């Protein structure tokens, strides 16, 4: 015979298992947009009321101004939806709005510098999402997907920053170090696929740092012989085991950097030597 608390659980289970009539699912996003429109309208009416009371100067609106206002209000609707979605996490309904807002930011990033900066901002957002998901004990597959998104966003930053201005490379290095640090603090709280994904991401960070720091040290300046030497394989040139390249016209080019002084040995191989320093000319000018 069950006691009352066991019976309460029994009732709860019975009622939960009763077959329910299927109901059409509600359109969560369109309902939210309706709420947003109302909040915006309320704000506009509040401004109008203050104007009527003489608290805000009245303007005589021409057609162009009304048109501009309509665009501002429409952008405000998007912005408001975007703002409301800022704190959302993967799996939340408004998360798709958040990602759509980021895509708009990416589209408007025209030059390489802004692409890297926007990429870093988005990667930091992905990182914060991973941290929140782990701390909130979300499902491991959701966390693993968030980590995959983080890796993908970071790779894009690294590809954009590699070989570019040193300041952007530094920013990318800082991002990768930040990711390593945060992922290291959360990996013990994660489980299953999530933990594996985080550990892989930490390992990838080390490789990313190598790539960035390698690109920084051997930064190729476009239009120089160093670049051309490095790009030799992309021309019709062939590379011989001795390090010399031979282009289609049979001209032998060396892969050695132009500032090195070389002489060719008996086998025709480049042979670096210490340069001879000539004395100052004795004849005055």
């Amino acid at each position: 015979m069950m006691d009352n608390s066991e019976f309460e659980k029994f009732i709860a289970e019975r009622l939960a298992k009763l077959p329910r009539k299927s109901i059409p699912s509600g359109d969560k996003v369109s309902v939210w947009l309706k709420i947003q429109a109302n909040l915006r309208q309320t704000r506009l009416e509040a401004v109008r009321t203050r104007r009527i009371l003489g608290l805000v100067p009245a303007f005589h609106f021409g057609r162009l101004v009304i048109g501009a206002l309509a665009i501002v209000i429409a952008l405000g609707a998007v912005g408001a939806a975007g703002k409301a979605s800022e704190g959302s996490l993967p799996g939340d309904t408004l998360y798709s709005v958040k990602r759509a807002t980021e895509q708009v930011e990416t589209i408007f990033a025209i030059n390489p510098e802004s692409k890297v900066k926007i990429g870093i901002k988005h990667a930091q957002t992905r990182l914060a999402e991973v941290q929140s998901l782990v701390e909130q004990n979300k499902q491991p597959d959701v966390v693993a997907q968030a980590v995959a998104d983080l890796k993908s966003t970071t790779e894009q930053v690294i590809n954009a920053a590699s070989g570019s201005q040193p300041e952007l490379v530094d920013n990318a290095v800082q991002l990768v170090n930040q990711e390593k640090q945060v992922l290291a603090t959360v990996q013990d709280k994660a489980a299953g696929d999530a933990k594996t994904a985080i550990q892989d991401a930490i390992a990838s960070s080390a490789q990313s740092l190598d790539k960035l720091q390698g690109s920084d040290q051997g930064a190729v300046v476009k239009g120089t012989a160093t670049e051309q030497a490095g790009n030799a394989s992309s021309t019709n040139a062939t590379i011989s085991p001795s390090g010399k390249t031979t282009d289609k016209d049979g001209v032998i080019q060396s892969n050695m950097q132009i500032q090195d002084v070389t002489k060719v040995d008996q086998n025709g191989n480049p042979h670096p030597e210490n340069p001879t320093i000539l004395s100052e000319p004795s004849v005055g000018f």
Partner: protein
Amino acid sequence: MARDSDNQQNVQALVQKALQGDESAFGQIYDLYFEKLYRFVFYRVNHKEAAEDLVSETFIRIWSSRSQIKGAGAFNAWVYQIARNLVIDYYRARKTIVDLQELENVLEYEDNVVDRTNLDFEQKTFLAALDKLGSDQQLVIKLKFLDELENEEIAKLLDKTEGAIRVIQHRAIAELKKLLENTHDGQ
């Protein structure tokens, strides 16, 4: 349990921010509450668009009256009370003769929830026993276990104290147990 308690604290913190005018927090509250509130309203109006309109109006009223909500703890109860009042207004607008008692019964909705076409013998027996409870007891059991509301929310909806709801629930469970045992013995 610790996880549930952490989640509850997170929700309370979000609610507090929303009550202070944080639109981003309000959006997250909407995300958390939408499904359960939509089901609560739909079971009472049985119409998708009407339910969506009533849910949006519920959140609009929550936002506009947020200064009157005394703290995050009262928030849940406030949500369901606003929704229930809007459902009553919905029916008022559609009826020429208003029977307040009939309208109050919008909280009764069982026919809209349970699909009675393919119940097995045990399920039929269980529902038959439930139907024999007093109306207050039935309502509390259904709100608690079908709508999954907390005692605080049920108390606000029925305009009773939480203590009164616990007593009703306790008596309903005891009565239901007796009815089911008698049915079992009678077989």
